[in-house]
């Protein structure tokens, strides 16, 4: 767990309201309203996608939607920047391979 629950300046974290998401096929809890990337990071998941040509792992780099390193397939939609997209109850999140596939694509 990497959540900063108590902090010398920010104080104790308020009681967390949880939502359920599915990450790479496995159920996971996320804090309501938080960014997908933050939820994954809290669980120690740091690879968001693999590059197209060399299959290199990529993860959090800018954290504010500028660099696209954190793109994943969310609810079947590829290229979603997870650092600026909040979790929702029932969301499915998958590590993206290359440019990703749309749900239903072969």
């Amino acid at each position, binding site marked *: 767990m990497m959540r*900063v629950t108590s902090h010398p300046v*920010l104080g104790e*974290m308020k009681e967390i309201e949880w939502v359920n998401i599915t990450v790479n096929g496995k159920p996971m809890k996320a804090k309501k309203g938080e960014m997908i990337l933050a939820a994954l990071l809290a669980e120690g998941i*740091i690879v968001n996608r693999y590059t197209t040509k060399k299959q290199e792992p990529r993860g959090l780099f800018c954290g504010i939607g500028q660099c696209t390193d954190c793109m994943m397939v969310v609810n079947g*939609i590829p290229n979603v920047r997870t650092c*600026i997209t909040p979790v929702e109850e029932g969301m499915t999140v998958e590590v993206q391979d290359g440019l990703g596939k749309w749900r239903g694509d072969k």
Partner: protein
Amino acid sequence: MKQCEMLVIGGGPAGLSAAIEAAEAGVQVVIIDANEKAGGQLFKQIHKFFGSSMHRAGTRGIDIGEELLQKCKDLNVEIWLNSLVIGVYDNNVVAVDVKKSLTEHELVKVQTKKIVIATGASENAVKFPGWTLPGVMGAGAAQTMANFHRVLPGKKVLMIGSGNVGLIVSYQLMQAGAEIVGIVEAQPNINGYAVHASKLTREGIPIYTGYTIIEAKGKERVNQAVIGKVNPDWSIVEGSEITLDVDTITIGAGLKPLIGMAYMGGCKLINDRFLGGWAPCHNYNMETTTKNIYVAGDASGVEEANTAIEEGKLCGVSIAESLGYLDSTKAEELKKAIWNRLAGLREGAHGTERTGAKQKQLEEYTKAMEG
């Protein structure tokens, strides 16, 4: 088409302050911000600012942020969130991509009389073997995670760069529970303010001056950093390499103004390293070489939250005056006071270069308008 009197691109300290100042005089303002919450970088700045009390020393960025948002609310400033300005066109038309959900976006055009570009800055990257590995990230990214989302991006951190961002973020990551393995600075001296540096050295955190990062090692995540001493020609001193066990490398290598919108608006730009790179020229009123387009904050040259606030206020006053909401005597009085405060903020060890660069920006504006 949606109409407004003043449209502010970016709701950080600069944009919010511009909006407040203008709205107080009676201008109808719309702020457009790409994020879920306005405030820009302020909500990551959990430490107290310093300077004189006039400059909000002793107040934390997060508290200043809340205060500015409350003022906007009280003044009925309209704020569009999750909305990205994607274009600035002729006749003061601005195109906005409004994100409604994962799949739904709406493109909205707004016709305005005045535009304020307060888009802030983006972080510079440093490239070295392994820099794309997960675990290598911007210092701002780590700060956003720890202070805003309250998730620690890693447990053993090496910071690249000893400027104020590098120092402050190192301290904040430590407050959030991470171990700072060290700070690497290629220059022979620490770059940021001594007060920030001493907070870290007191905790026994080594600051490797005269060192650079050579390589990040790891497969799915960085697990080692190799650093080494630099020669004057930037080659590595043989045998000086040190390998550190880390799970995170954060890069605090400075910021550059986000100038895309100024570029689209046809504003003349100048390049100065003390501004962080390319930035639009502007006049005493913060108006760029394109009439009715103003600029404030990091977008006009990277500085600090305090200067961003003052520059924003300048835009607000100038626009209120230009639209007839403030008489020129009153406006002049306010502008003078703001410029005096800005001069105060640009004093001191790191201020002289910035003052010089800001002066050049004003001069280049005059040259461009005469030429």
